[in-house]
Structure formats: structure tokens, C-alpha cells
């Protein structure tokens, strides 16, 4: 990966990291829709890593690896938690879950990013967004 950063389980640190990544996204010429998608997925991924993966434990860290070029943005977020099975997360769009206030983060990442993968342990997320501008002939 092009760049790796490690932060404590802290939302302010996550915000600073997010801003740095979005500067890089802008520098590589991503359009408004792609930038919205990357920002959304980054927030959801970091939120899950800090609040759920690391359970907010400030002694645990989150590692963010980014590889962003004009063709595609690859982001890998790793926490120090025990992991989870994304298959067990209820579908928030199912009728019976529509009014549940939480559980939409993974669904949103899947809706907005081109690729969303978790590792076997369930504590590492890899998301990819391709740059539509670069795909045009």
C-alpha cells in the first residue's frame, strides 16, 4: 500500500485521518459522487473499527492503509478487535429492520463502493472505489 497510518481508537484522530485521505482523493481528480462515496465508506469503516472492533478502547489502535491513484482508491482499515462475521449482520433494508436505528454502515459501504471485503478474522476491511472519470473513453 502507498501509505499507512495508525491512530488510537479516537474519533478526533479518525476525523483528521479522513480529511487527509479526502485531500488525496481530490488531488487525484475524483468526481463529487465518488468523493461522497469514499467519505461515507471511510466514516462507516472507521466508526465500526473504533466503536465496534476496538469497543472504544483507547489503548487499541486502528491501522489505515491507502493506495489512491487517478484510476482507483483502495482503503484498508484494520482494528485490534476479535472480528465479526459480516454475514450475520441483519439486512437493514428488510421490512422487519427498517425502523432499527443502527446497522446500516456495511450496507451503505456495499451500495456506494465498487468492492467491499472483510478478511477471514473479520477485523480488516478492504474497500475500493474506481474513478469514473478514468473509465470514460
Amino acid at each position, binding site marked *: 500500500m502507498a501509505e499507512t497510518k495508525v491512530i488510537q481508537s479516537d*474519533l478526533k484522530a479518525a476525523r483528521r485521518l479522513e480529511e487527509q485521505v479526502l485531500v488525496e482523493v481530490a488531488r487525484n481528480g475524483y468526481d463529487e459522487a465518488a468523493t461522497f462515496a469514499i467519505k461515507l465508506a471511510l466514516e*462507516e469503516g472507521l466508526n465500526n473499527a473504533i466503536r465496534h472492533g476496538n469497543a472504544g478502547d483507547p489503548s487499541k489502535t486502528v491501522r489505515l492503509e491507502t493506495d489512491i491513484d487517478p484510476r482507483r482508491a483502495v482503503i484498508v482499515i484494520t482494528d485490534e478487535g476479535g472480528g465479526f462475521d459480516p454475514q450475520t449482520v441483519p439486512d437493514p433494508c428488510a421490512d422487519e429492520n427498517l425502523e432499527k436505528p443502527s446497522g446500516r454502515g456495511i450496507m*451503505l459501504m456495499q451500495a456506494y463502493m465498487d468492492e467491499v471485503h472483510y478478511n477471514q478474522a473479520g477485523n480488516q476491511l478492504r474497500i475500493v472505489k474506481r474513478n469514473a472519470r478514468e473509465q470514460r473513453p
Partner: protein
Amino acid sequence: MSAEFGSLELCVEQREAGVVVHVRGEVNLYESDRLRAELKRLVHQRVEQIVLDLAEMTFICSDGLGAIISAHIQCRHHAGRISLVSPCPAVGAMLDATRLSELFPVRDSVDEALSS
């Protein structure tokens, strides 16, 4: 009443038919608690009609959506309701993707929301 911090501004406007919350900027992971707290305050006041004017809201995360859903559920206890007004295309697409546009009425203007 207006309270600005970071990239989110919440402006609460009392109207005869209800309360309008003008949401400006980003309801992101770091500020969604402010929207949650404001809606909770209005729910506790048993406001019957809460209109969220989203015309100038540029972003919302799942936590922010959760704050609106929580208020929607709490509103039921006093037969209150929440409606949404003029989300930008990106947020409108999010509401459709999550099927929340089926849960909340989405109106074109504040006046339309207040009179419906």
C-alpha cells in the same frame, strides 16, 4: 436558535404547525450526536410535527440516519411525526438505497411538509 460547531449547523424555527430544523452542512460521524440531542430535546417537548429541512445538508452518515429513526420511533409515543424536506441528490439517493424514503415523507418544501 442557532448553534454552529465544526461543519454542522442546526437552526430551529418554531412555526404554528410545528418545528422546523434547518440542517446545514454535514451530519458526519463526529457530529451526529448533536442532531440526535436536538431531536431528542424536541421529542421530549412532545412536538407533534418535526420537519427536517435538508436542503443545505451535504452529507449524512449511518449514525445520523439512526438519530432520525430514533426520533421517529420516540415521536410515536405522543402521535408525533417527522418529515424530510428537499434532500440533495446524493442524500436522496441514500434515503432510497436504505429504503428510508419509504419510512419518512419526503417533501419539496417546508410549507408543503407543514401543511400535509
